[in-house]
């Protein structure tokens, strides 16, 4: 919600000023909508855990889901198959480098987010939230990031430390 801290008001005024000319002739046709209406539609999960749904899962539970729905392409141990990325093993500094979900991805949230929105490729969004928790736990376990019985849920997922998490350099405000 909008706050009344003076600095915050100033920042907001700056943002408004940047687009004042465009706003003047805006017909303002947006239809109000509530966040509650976006439940189940907004699939974005961020590293801080925002957007994670209810439910939980372990790697032990995820193995069956993985073997049924993922292993044909990604391999039984997440080793990948021709044309399909490996999920576990390797290292960005090996020769040749191998950048897998386990060895390279900086945040566990990305696995949950990506599996839920885009996997499997022939039937994206077909997994239940519980299955996504289970498969995410299993992918993490393939790289020994969590134990087989570690319960992944909206509270525990943001606490998972990825091995390569500290090795990304944020260039978002340093464009050429």
């Amino acid at each position, binding site marked *: *919600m*909008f*706050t009344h801290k003076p600095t*915050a*008001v100033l920042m*907001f005024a700056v*943002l*408004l000023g*940047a*687009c004042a000319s*465009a*706003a003047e002739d*805006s017909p303002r*046709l*947006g*239809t*109000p*909508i*509530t*966040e509650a209406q*976006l439940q189940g*539609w*907004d*699939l*974005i*999960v*961020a*590293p*801080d855990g925002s957007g994670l749904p209810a439910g939980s899962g372990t790697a032990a539970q995820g193995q069956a889901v993985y073997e049924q729905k993922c292993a044909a*392409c990604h391999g039984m141990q997440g080793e990948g198959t021709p044309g*399909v*990325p490996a999920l576990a093993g390797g290292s*960005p*500094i090996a020769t*040749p*480098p191998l*950048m897998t*979900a386990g060895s*390279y*991805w*900086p*945040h566990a949230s*990305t696995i949950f*987010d*990506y599996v839920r*929105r*885009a996997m499997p*490729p*022939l039937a*994206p*969004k077909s997994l239940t939230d519980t299955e996504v928790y289970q498969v995410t736990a299993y992918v993490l376990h393939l790289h020994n990031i969590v134990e087989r019985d570690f319960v992944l849920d909206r509270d525990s997922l943001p606490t998972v430390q990825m091995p390569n998490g500290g*090795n*990304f*350099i*944020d*260039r*978002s*405000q340093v*464009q*050429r």
Partner: protein
Amino acid sequence: MNNNKSELELAHLHEQLRSESVAGNGLINRRHLLGLGLAGAGSLVAGNVLAADASGLVIPAWSKTPGRELSGYGSPSRFAAGVTRLAPQPNAISPGTGASRTPLHLLQGTLTPNSLHFERHHAGIPDIDPAQHRLVLHGMVRQPLAFSYEDLLAYPQVSRTYFLECSGNSGANSGPTAADNSAGGIHGLLSCAEWTGVRLSTLLEEAGVTPEASWITCTGADAASLGRSVPLNKAMEDVIIALYQNGEPIRPEQGYPMRLFVPGWEGNVSVKWLTQIKVTDGPANFRDETSRYTELLPDGRALQFTYSMGVKSVITSPSGQMTLTRRGLHEVTGLAWSGSGAIRRVEISADGGRTWADAHIEENQQALTLTRFRLPWLWEGGEAILQSRATDTAGNVQPARAAWVAMYSPANRYHYNGIQSWAVSAQGEVKNVYA
């Protein structure tokens, strides 16, 4: 030889041209060329089609009968049917995933026809009914809003000509060996169009961005629901919700009915089939901004959120897999662009970078568009290595390939902008090389 110059005359002209050299191995000063009255390359051709035909011209058949009927939507001449995107085989594992490339070596000027704009999809092209599509703006805003396509058509729109380049464009040239490929095959994840749409700032203002917000996170309505994060300052600056491409509704391959368009930045952030903009206080760290579209460094660390496309150029003619079939004057031409401004200068070398000459570019180049450059070149049958080197208005200079390679891990394929080298053999065959 009818109207053609005699061999002796031709030799004399070449001698004159050599005296107008501006750099090694045949690069000619364009102004001097015009001064000599030799701008028409045909005047230097020793034996062309017309001359070889001893009989006079005849009125062709198509001038003696009415042509075909009009049509609802035009298509190219059947004689230009070979000017197509360079498309891959279908992807059996992940349907619709892959890229098709703009045939840069078959085009001229700077605008890409809509049917030839490059494609990069992560789960195919959705068949979206605009009447059912919604763009939702929510998150750190005072009032979450939903917009229909029809709503957006009623907003004030802006038209801008921008290039769009995939972060992985030219990545093949970062590999250990130079692939035998064409300019389009190597660099064709690059296109340029006039994009028309609604400023994102107009919609953000309507929803009311709250003070703690610093990013937007955007997703598309394709099967991959592709997501990317964009800093709020860029979103407020020049990002548009594009609805039209070169004047017509944007093509399904480009995001119909609407796409985000983020000028100058790697193509992947210009989310197609845009359906969600969630205002946040941090990036979502989507798959396509962590696992992919990050640049691995030699020490194992990686650059993340490298958005702006580096200054770059490529000679499109003569270029890879072409063959020069006649000796004499040719026009070296190509494209230059930068995500950091306009192109200020393009230099060309015909001797592998030992000597350089300024190419001709049009004045008053616009920022974040393609720039066409040209320079006359006298090829007399010797070996040559053609290169181009662009400089932008921010002062960035396109790096040599070796300098680029030294900056990254050998595994990195993103943001490659090293100088392209085309080797010309004594037989006139043009080939991609590392030089």
